C-alpha cells in the first residue's frame, strides 16, 4: 500500500514536470537557449572598457578577470564568495565525520590483504604519478578543464592508494589538519586583503596579464591552488577516519 502510494506520487510529479518540459512553459527547449540574452554573455566578453571588443586568445590584455576557462572565472572570481561557503560546508562535514568515527584509542582497519612485493613497489611509483597529476590539474585550473576540486580529490586518491597497498602506512592526521586550517585561513586572508586595499571582499588585486599564459589571471591560480590543497587534505582526513576503528 505504502509502495503503491509512493509510486503514484512520483508518477504524478514526473508527469507534471514532463508536461511542462514538453510545452516549453518554463524552460526553452534543450539546445535552443539564447546565451546572448543571459548574464553569462557578460562573463564571456570580459573586456574592461565595456565596448564589446572581441576577446582573442593569446593577445587580449587588460581584462576584467583573466582566465581562459570561463567556468573558473565564475567559480573563483565572480562567485568566489559562494565557493568560500561551499568549502566551509565541506569543512563542517569532515569535522562531523571525525566526531562520529574518531575515538580515543584508534587503530588501522584490518583489511587482511597481504600486499606482495610488486604491489607495494608499483603503488609507490603510481602514487607519485597520481599526485603530480593532481597538482598539475590544480595549477592549470585557469587554462584547462579541471581545477581545485578534482585536483584536490586526485591528491586524496593517491593517499587512498597508499593506504590500500601498504600495510604499515598511516597518514599523519595532524599534518592534514594543520594544512587544511592554514589554507582555509589563507583564503579568508586574501579576501580580507581585497577588502582592505581594493574595496570589496576577494577583489582581484594582481595584474591580469595576457589571456592564455600560465602566469595570468591575477589571484585566480593562487586561490585555486589553495582550494585544491584544502579539499585534498580534508578528503584525506575523511578517508583516514573511515579506515580506522576503535580498539587497541
Amino acid at each position, binding site marked *: 500500500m505504502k*509502495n503503491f502510494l509512493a509510486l503514484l506520487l512520483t508518477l504524478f510529479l514526473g508527469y507534471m514536470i514532463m508536461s511542462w518540459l514538453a510545452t516549453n512553459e518554463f524552460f526553452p527547449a534543450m539546445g535552443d537557449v539564447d*546565451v546572448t540574452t543571459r548574464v553569462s554573455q557578460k562573463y564571456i566578453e570580459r573586456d574592461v572598457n565595456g565596448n564589446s571588443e572581441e576577446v582573442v586568445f593569446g593577445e587580449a590584455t587588460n581584462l576584467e578577470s583573466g582566465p581562459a576557462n570561463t567556468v573558473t572565472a565564475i567559480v573563483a572570481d565572480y562567485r568566489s564568495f559562494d565557493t568560500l561557503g561551499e568549502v566551509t560546508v565541506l569543512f563542517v562535514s569532515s569535522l562531523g565525520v571525525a566526531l562520529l568515527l574518531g575515538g580515543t584509542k584508534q587503530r588501522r582497519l584490518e583489511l587482511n590483504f597481504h600486499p606482495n612485493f610488486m604491489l607495494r613497489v608499483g603503488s609507490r611509483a603510481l602514487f607519485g604519478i597520481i599526485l603530480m597529476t593532481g597538482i598539475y590539474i590544480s595549477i592549470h585550473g585557469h587554462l584547462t578543464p579541471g581545477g581545485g576540486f578534482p585536483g584536490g580529490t586526485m591528491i586524496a586518491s593517491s593517499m587512498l592508494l597508499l593506504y590500500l597497498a601498504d600495510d604499515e602506512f598511516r597518514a599523519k592526521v595532524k599534518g592534514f589538519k594543520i594544512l587544511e586550517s592554514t589554507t582555509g585561513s589563507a583564503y579568508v586572508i586574501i579576501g580580507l586583503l581585497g577588502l582592505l586595499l581594493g574595496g570589496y571582499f576577494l577583489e582581484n588585486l594582481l595584474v591580469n596579464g595576457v589571456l592564455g599564459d600560465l602566469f595570468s589571471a591575477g589571484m585566480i591560480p593562487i586561490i585555486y591552488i589553495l582550494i585544491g590543497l584544502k579539499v585534498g587534505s580534508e578528503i584525506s582526513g575523511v578517508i583516514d577516519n573511515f579506515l580506522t576503528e576503535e580498539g587497541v
Partner: protein
Amino acid sequence: MLQYAAIVLIMLGLYGLLTQRNIIKIIISLNILEIGVNLFIVSVGFVTDGIAPIFTSVNNSSNLLFVDPLPQALVLTAIVIGVGTTALGLALAKNIYQKYGTFDINEMGEE
C-alpha cells in the same frame, strides 16, 4: 532526450527514498537523485552546436558560440557538496549499525 532521462532519474531517486528501508539504499537513492538534478541543470545551459566555454588556441575568439558556463559552475560546487553529505551519512550509518546491529530502519525500535 537526456533531459527526460534526468527527470526519470529524479523520479527513481525519489521513489527509492520513499520506499527503501535500508539506510545504505537510502543514501544510494539520494546519490541517484543528485546525479539526475546535476544532469538537468547542465542541460538547461546547453546550446546546439555550441562549444565548451574555454578559450584555447583553436577556439580563440569570443565571437564563437559558447554554451552557458553559469550552470556548469553551479554543478561543479554541487558535486563536491554531495561528497560531504554522503560521507556524513555513511558515518552516521556506521554508528547506527554499531548501536543497533542492523541497517533496517523498521527493526531498530524493537530491541
